[in-house]
C-alpha cells in the first residue's frame, strides 16, 4: 500500500467502461452484437488530439497499467515502471489509453460476462478472439474517444503483437509502434507450452468443459498449473537461480514426495494460487489461443515483409538477452523483414538477466532506449504540451 503516492506516479486512477452496441464480426466468423471494454487513461489529450498513446496488454494483463485504484492498493498497475510523469511513456506529454481486451476477465466482455441473448454467462461459448479482433475493437474505442491516430501503439509480448497488427491494419492511424519482447509468430515450442497450460486447465475435473460457472465449481488447480508452467517460461534460469537458488524452506530435507521443500516450488505455488483466484480459466484458454494464431505472414505465404508492406509507422523493436520465451532471434526475424520491406525500424537487444519478464522491469539500458524513442515521438507531436 502506498503511504504517499510517488511523484512519478499517475496517482489514483479510475477505470471506465465503453459500451458498444454496434455489431463486431470476429475473425472466426461469429458476431458480437454488443460488448463493453474496460479502460483507463492517464495524462491529458491535447487540443489537436495528437498525443494519444495506446498500451496493449500481454497474456494476463488488463486495463490497469499504471497508478493506484485506491490508497489501499498493495501494488500499482502492471506497467507502472514505464508510465508516469518523467517515465518513458511520459504522462506530462502523452495521453495514455490502456484497456482490457475483448474476452478478458477484468471488466471487458468475455466468457464470464452475461450473453444478452441467453441471459446466461457465455462460458466456453464465447467466440475465439484473435489479435486482429482486438485491434479492431481497440479502433472502435479510439473512435469513441475521438482519437484519430495514435502517436504510438506500444506493447510487450502479446501486446507487441497487437502493436504490430495495428501498424499493418491501420497504417494511417499509427505514427510509431514499439514491439517489445515479442515475436511475429509463435514457435512450435511456444505453442507446446501453451498447450500444456490449456491441458492443465481442461483436464481439471472441475472444468466441466468450460461450464464450471453453471456447476458452481472452479478449475483452480488446473489454472494454477497453467500459470506455474507459464511462470517458468517468463523467468530465466539465472533470475530463478538468483531469486531462489536451491534454497530449502526448512533446514533439512524431508524426504517426502509431496512436500514443498525448495523456495522455488513455494514461489510457483504462490504465484499459481494467487493467479487462479483472480483469473478466468476460459479467458486463459482464449488468450493462449490468440497467441498461437497470431501470424500476419500467413496470408502472404509466410512472407512477413509482404505482410508489413502497408505499414507507415516508425518501429522500435526491443528484445532481452535472457528471454527464452521470445528470444532475441525472434525479434531479429521481425527486424529483418521490416528492413526488407524498407520500413523505418530501430532495434535494441537489451542485456538483462530477467528473462521474458524483463520488459516489465525498468533496467537502465532498457529505460535509456525507451526514453530515447519516446522522446523523439513526443518531439514529433505538433503541439506537445
Amino acid at each position, binding site marked *: 500500500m502506498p503511504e504517499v503516492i510517488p511523484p512519478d506516479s499517475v496517482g489514483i486512477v479510475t477505470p471506465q467502461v465503453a459500451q458498444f452496441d454496434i455489431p463486431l464480426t470476429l475473425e472466426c466468423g461469429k458476431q458480437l452484437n454488443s460488448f463493453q471494454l474496460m479502460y483507463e487513461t492517464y495524462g491529458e489529450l491535447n487540443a489537436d488530439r495528437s498525443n494519444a498513446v495506446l498500451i496493449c496488454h500481454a497474456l494476463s494483463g488488463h486495463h490497469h497499467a499504471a497508478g493506484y485504484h485506491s490508497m489501499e492498493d498493495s501494488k500499482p498497475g502492471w506497467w507502472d515502471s514505464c508510465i508516469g510523469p518523467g517515465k518513458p511513456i511520459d504522462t506530462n506529454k502523452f495521453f495514455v489509453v490502456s484497456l482490457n481486451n475483448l474476452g478478458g476477465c477484468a471488466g471487458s466482455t468475455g466468457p464470464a460476462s452475461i450473453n444478452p441473448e441467453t441471459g446466461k454467462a457465455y462460458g466456453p461459448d464465447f467466440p475465439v478472439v484473435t489479435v486482429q479482433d482486438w485491434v479492431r475493437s481497440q479502433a472502435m474505442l479510439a473512435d469513441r474517444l475521438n482519437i484519430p491516430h495514435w502517436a504510438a501503439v506500444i506493447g510487450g509480448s502479446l501486446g507487441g503483437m497487437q502493436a504490430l497488427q495495428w501498424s499493418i491494419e491501420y497504417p494511417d492511424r499509427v505514427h510509431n509502434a514499439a514491439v517489445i519482447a515479442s515475436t511475429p509468430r509463435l514457435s512450435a515450442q511456444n505453442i507446446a507450452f501453451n498447450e500444456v497450460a490449456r491441458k492443465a486447465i481442461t483436464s481439471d475435473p472441475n472444468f466441466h468443459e468450460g461450464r464450471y460457472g453453471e456447476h458452481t465449481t472452479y478449475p483452480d488447480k488446473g489454472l494454477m498449473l497453467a500459470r506455474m508452467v507459464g511462470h517458468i517460461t517468463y523467468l530465466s534460469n539465472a533470475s530463478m537461480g538468483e531469486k531462489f537458488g536451491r534454497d530449502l524452506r526448512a533446514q533439512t530435507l524431508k524426504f517426502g514426495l509431496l512436500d514443498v521443500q525448495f523456495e522455488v516450488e513455494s514461489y510457483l505455488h504462490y504465484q499459481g494460487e494467487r493467479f487462479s483466484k483472480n483469473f478466468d480459466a476460459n479467458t486463459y484458454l482464449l488468450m493462449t489461443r490468440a497467441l498461437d494464431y497470431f501470424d500476419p505472414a500467413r496470408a502472404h505465404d509466410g512472407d512477413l515483409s509482404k505482410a508489413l508492406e502497408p505499414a507507415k509507422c516508425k518501429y522500435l523493436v526491443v528484445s532481452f538477452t535472457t528471454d527464452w520465451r521470445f528470444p532475441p532471434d525472434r525479434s531479429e526475424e521481425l527486424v529483418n523483414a521490416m*528492413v*526488407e520491406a524498407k520500413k523505418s525500424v*530501430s*532495434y535494441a537487444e537489451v542485456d538483462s538477466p530477467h528473462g521474458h519478464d524483463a520488459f516489465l522491469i525498468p533496467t537502465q539500458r532498457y529505460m535509456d532506449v525507451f526514453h530515447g524513442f519516446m522522446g523523439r515521438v513526443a518531439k514529433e507531436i505538433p503541439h506537445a504540451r
Partner: protein
Amino acid sequence: MRADLSIIKDWVQPGTEVLDLGCGDGTLLDYLQTHKQVRGYGLEISSENITECLRKGVNVIEQDLDSKGLSNFKDKSFDMVVMTQALQAVRQPDILLDEMLRLGKECIITFPNFGYWRLRYYLARKGQMPVSKTLPYTWYNTPNIHLCTFKDFEELCYQKNIHILHRTVVDDEHRTNWLNQLWPNLLGQIAIYHVTR
C-alpha cells in the same frame, strides 16, 4: 561534422538508400536524411550511440558485425554501404568487404593509413608500435587488429576485382592538400575510398 564524414556526404546521391556500418551516434545518417532525403539504417553496438540515434530519429539496429556478419541482409538491398574507421577493427575485413559489395551497389570505406610517414618513422626510430592521434592505443589494448596501408587496401581491391571510383587521403585534421594527394601512402593519415564491383 567530422571532416571524413563531410567528404563522404558529397559522394552520396540524394534519395538513395544507405547502410552505415558502425554508425556511431548517427551524425552522418542524420545529415543525409535531413539534407539529401536519404533513407537508411545504421548498425551499431555501443548502447550510448544507439540511444543517441534513437533520440535523433536515425534508424539504428543493434548488430555485431564481427559475430553476426551481414548475412541477414539481402543482396543489393542498398545503394550505398558505408563503413568509417571500422575496417581495421573487424576480424575478417576481406570477407566484410565482399559482404558490403554484396549488399550495396557502391561502398565507402575509411581507415587509418598505417603507411603514413610518421608511423613508419615511429616504428623505425623507436622500434615500438606507433601511438598517434589517429591510432591512440597501445598494442595490447587496441581494437585495431587489421591495420593496413593505402597500398595494401588497393592490392586487396585489385585481387578482388573491386573498382575504385574515388579515393582521397586526409591528415589528422581531415584536410587534403597537394602533398598528401601526390604521395598518399606516405603522407595520408586517413584513407577514404569509394568503391564498386
